């Protein structure tokens, strides 16, 4: 089926969200809690768009709104821009220590105000980390408590027996809110200390032993038989391809 978005007509699969369809067509809608790998969460509300369907116009969240009939979408109107400015303001005041939020705050031209800034905070509660941890099959962290006190934590704020120290949470965090300390052969994350494994080729520590053991227990041994860092793994693949190419007869 078809959907008109910002005057352009694009193809949509029924039931697909506006966000997914727009991204496929190369139209970007701002979002802070969206990641292709996880689908829409509807937390940040930055991706609100105006939808016209059956003569009714309303604001919806593009990452959770499924397109099931002909709709016309506007990704930016003065009302939507105001909402985005307010959301950025609220999140910047919540997490003023995040450079990412500071840049966003300035680029959205948010006006200064008297709201109190929460010093020392970088987390904006997008919960991408929780989703990443869940996808990893570990679920060591979750959103705890509720209301304005809601935050991301391990159970009892202690080292979680489930955590494998993979750092997927920190990698996906847009604001650098998850602290990872790496020193020598140790990594500290979420209050837990991990021993690192060294790359068999370059000798640099590249992953926690716990993560490798976790992967080895779940994946085909072949995939992880060599403990290589991502750099050396790439080199290894390139080398294999080169050797293979070299073995081919010259055409």
């Amino acid at each position, binding site marked *: 089926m078809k959907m008109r978005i910002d005057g352009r007509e694009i193809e949509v699969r029924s039931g697909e969200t506006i966000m997914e369809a727009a991204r496929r067509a190369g139209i970007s809608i701002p979002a802070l809690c969206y990641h292709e790998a996880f689908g829409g969460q509807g937390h940040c509300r930055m991706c609100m768009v105006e939808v016209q369907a059956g003569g009714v116009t309303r604001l919806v969240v593009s990452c959770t709104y499924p397109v099931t009939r002909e709709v016309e979408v506007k990704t930016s109107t003065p009302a939507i821009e105001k909402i985005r400015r307010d959301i950025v303001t609220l999140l910047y005041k919540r997490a003023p220590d995040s450079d990412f939020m500071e840049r966003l705050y300035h680029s959205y031209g948010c006006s200064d105000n008297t709201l109190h800034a929460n010093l020392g905070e970088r987390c904006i509660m997008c919960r991408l980390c929780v989703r990443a941890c869940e996808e990893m099959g570990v*679920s*060591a*962290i979750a*959103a705890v*408590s509720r209301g304005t006190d809601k935050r991301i934590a391990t*159970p009892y704020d202690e080292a979680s027996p*489930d955590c494998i120290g993979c750092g997927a949470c920190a990698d996906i965090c847009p604001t650098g809110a998850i602290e990872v300390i790496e020193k020598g052969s140790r990594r500290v994350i979420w209050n837990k200390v991990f021993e690192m494994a060294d790359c068999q080729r370059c000798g640099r520590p590249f992953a926690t032993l716990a993560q490798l053991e976790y992967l080895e227990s779940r994946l085909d041994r072949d995939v992880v038989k060599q403990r290589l860092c991502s750099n050396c793994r790439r080199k290894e693949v390139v080398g294999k391809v080169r050797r293979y190419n070299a073995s081919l007869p010259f055409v």
Partner: protein
Amino acid sequence: MATNGNQLETEEQFQEIITRYPTEQRYIMPIMHDLRNRYHYLPRKALEMAAAHLQVPLSQVYSMATFYKAFSLIPRGRVRLKTCDGTTCHIKGSQTIIEEVYKNLGIRPGETTPDREFSLETVNCIGACAIAPALIVNDKVYGKVTAASLKTIIREYGGRENE
């Protein structure tokens, strides 16, 4: 470890409560209710065992235990004071009760006295608006509580005043 109500908290007891329920995620809350009814809080070991039994990550169980206000992760006192902070009680002076409890027992909402005798929490409207402000002690409701009657109630339950 023995706590309030002389209920021994043993793993066998936890297991007995937890295994009343089949392995389905929807039984997290019923298990928490049963634990709360017995121990007045959710013992950590019991939650860990519940997570294992229901095959749900501990983080999910912990997330729920901290989300739902009916549950406490810290032990409650032998005498559990709950002040109603519904609108009616609020405009009829529940704040004063909270302050008076602090003056008398030195605890704020969510806290337990060091001797585990008294704990205080606030609850949303209990539907006793006609007798606001209301105070629930263990399961008994006291209506039209004033600073003076609060002192009497605390004494009734064996509390001594702070100097």
